[in-house]
């Protein structure tokens, strides 16, 4: 189990959700890492995140194989876990079954008790007491198009939640395969925000909804700017999702899952693109791509990353993140259990953990 005595303020804690439990990696210098199992052995942890707005509370999406799906939280870095008093469970009358919890997102800095969660079947859940009790958002559940929403390969999953720090009434969510949605009235109503994003798998290439968004991130100082990695391209919006610009440029594939951003140089964005059939690196070299000008050009990053005819690495939607140091760290986990890290904005990489179970999610926190 983890030992929080070693977790010093200023050190980086990387939370790795895997097919078989949660792991924590800690480093003071981002070169030497200590790897520890943090409980939930045997459980599919789709996402885990540390909320430091009021103490240190670790949340995990525990999608058990047999005995149900639970959001859990820990105040001692995984030594002990708690279930909410009123957890994420649909009302019996809804006829819905909770399949998986996909994402847990702490709320805005000014609302320290508020935590959001996204699940399959697509719904948004809110806690205002630090995760102890949960309720679902009725505005999304009652959306007039809901009966026509179709799942992606991973299910009808709400996998991305972005509460706008500049506007308490505005939030974006990503649902596969529905697309990007936005509320401007604190969740009472939701509009689609998919204009100019493609659905190549559909007879209608530019539908109002039905796009397979894979991941969405927001610019930290220009809140109307967001980037998304989609099943069918990489896009940028400068108007809060009113329309999107294709920024794939010369990337070797339009298909990929994760996207992450450097908060200190927020025109710097990282993606991993994949062969859409094999769902692994394009060609023989595992490559992370970086743009430093908001998607006008992309640069392949390979120093320290493996290559060769035996290299077939895939990265899932939540398995790449950055930390908030400057220069930022970048962390990439593979679906075969390798975790790569860069402490210099992607210029160079090292393997910091191997032989982990398949990695579903990677999040990083600089401990305060």
């Amino acid at each position: 189990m983890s030992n929080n005595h070693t977790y010093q303020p200023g050190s980086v804690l990387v939370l790795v959700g895997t097919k078989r439990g949660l792991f924590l990696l800690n480093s003071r210098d981002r070169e030497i890492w200590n790897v520890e199992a943090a409980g939930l052995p045997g459980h599919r942890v789709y996402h885990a995140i540390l909320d430091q707005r009021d103490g240190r509370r670790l949340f995990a999406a525990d999608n058990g194989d047999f005995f149900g799906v639970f959001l859990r939280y820990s105040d001692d870095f995984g030594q002990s876990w708690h279930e909410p008093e009123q957890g994420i469970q649909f009302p019996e009358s809804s006829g819905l079954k909770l399949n998986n919890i996909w994402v847990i997102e702490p709320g805005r800095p000014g609302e320290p008790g508020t935590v959001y969660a996204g699940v399959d079947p697509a719904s948004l859940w809110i806690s205002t007491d630090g995760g102890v009790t949960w309720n679902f958002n009725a505005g999304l559940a009652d959306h007039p198009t809901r009966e026509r929403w179709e799942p992606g390969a991973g299910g009808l999953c709400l996998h991305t939640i972005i509460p706008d720090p500049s506007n308490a009434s505005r939030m974006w969510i990503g649902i596969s395969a529905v697309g990007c949605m936005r509320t401007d009235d604190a969740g009472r109503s939701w509009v689609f925000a998919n204009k100019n994003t493609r659905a190549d798998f559909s007879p209608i290439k530019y539908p109002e909804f039905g796009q397979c968004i894979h991941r969405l991130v927001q610019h930290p100082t220009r809140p109307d700017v967001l980037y998304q990695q989609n099943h069918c391209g990489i896009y940028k919006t400068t108007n809060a999702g009113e329309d999107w610009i294709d920024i794939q440029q010369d990337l070797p594939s339009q298909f990929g899952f994760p996207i992450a951003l450097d908060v200190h140089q927020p025109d710097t964005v990282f993606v991993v693109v994949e062969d859409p059939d094999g769902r692994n690196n394009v060609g023989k070299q595992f490559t992370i791509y970086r743009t430093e000008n908001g998607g006008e050009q992309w640069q392949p990053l390979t120093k320290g990353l493996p290559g060769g005819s035996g290299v077939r690495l895939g990265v899932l939607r939540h398995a790449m993140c950055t930390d908030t140091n400057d220069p930022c760290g970048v962390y990439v986990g593979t679906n075969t259990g390798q975790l790569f890290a860069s402490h210099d904005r992607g210029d160079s990489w090292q393997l910091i953990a191997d032989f982990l179970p398949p990695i579903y999610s990677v999040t990083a926190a600089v401990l305060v």
Partner: protein
Amino acid sequence: MDLPVTIPNATVSLPNALRARAGNRRTVVVNGSTIREIIAALDHDFPGLRFNLCYETGELRSYVNIFLDRENIRYLDGLDTPVRNGATIHILQSVAGG
């Protein structure tokens, strides 16, 4: 005059994964005339246990098996299977995988 009604009691054997919720006990004794009532009694004594066994809709989870004595209730009357006094009930996870 109404005759007294005796609600059967049953011994329920829990799998490893659920014992923590029941105070680390391997077996517990609860009352119920059907498997559904047994599950309700388990949830009363150990809150949250019903959600381990059943979806929100009330159906038994796909990878949970409940045996009444030696019979899988899926091949009896499911959750409405009657329980006799002194029965033994085993809750098991499915053999899922290779």
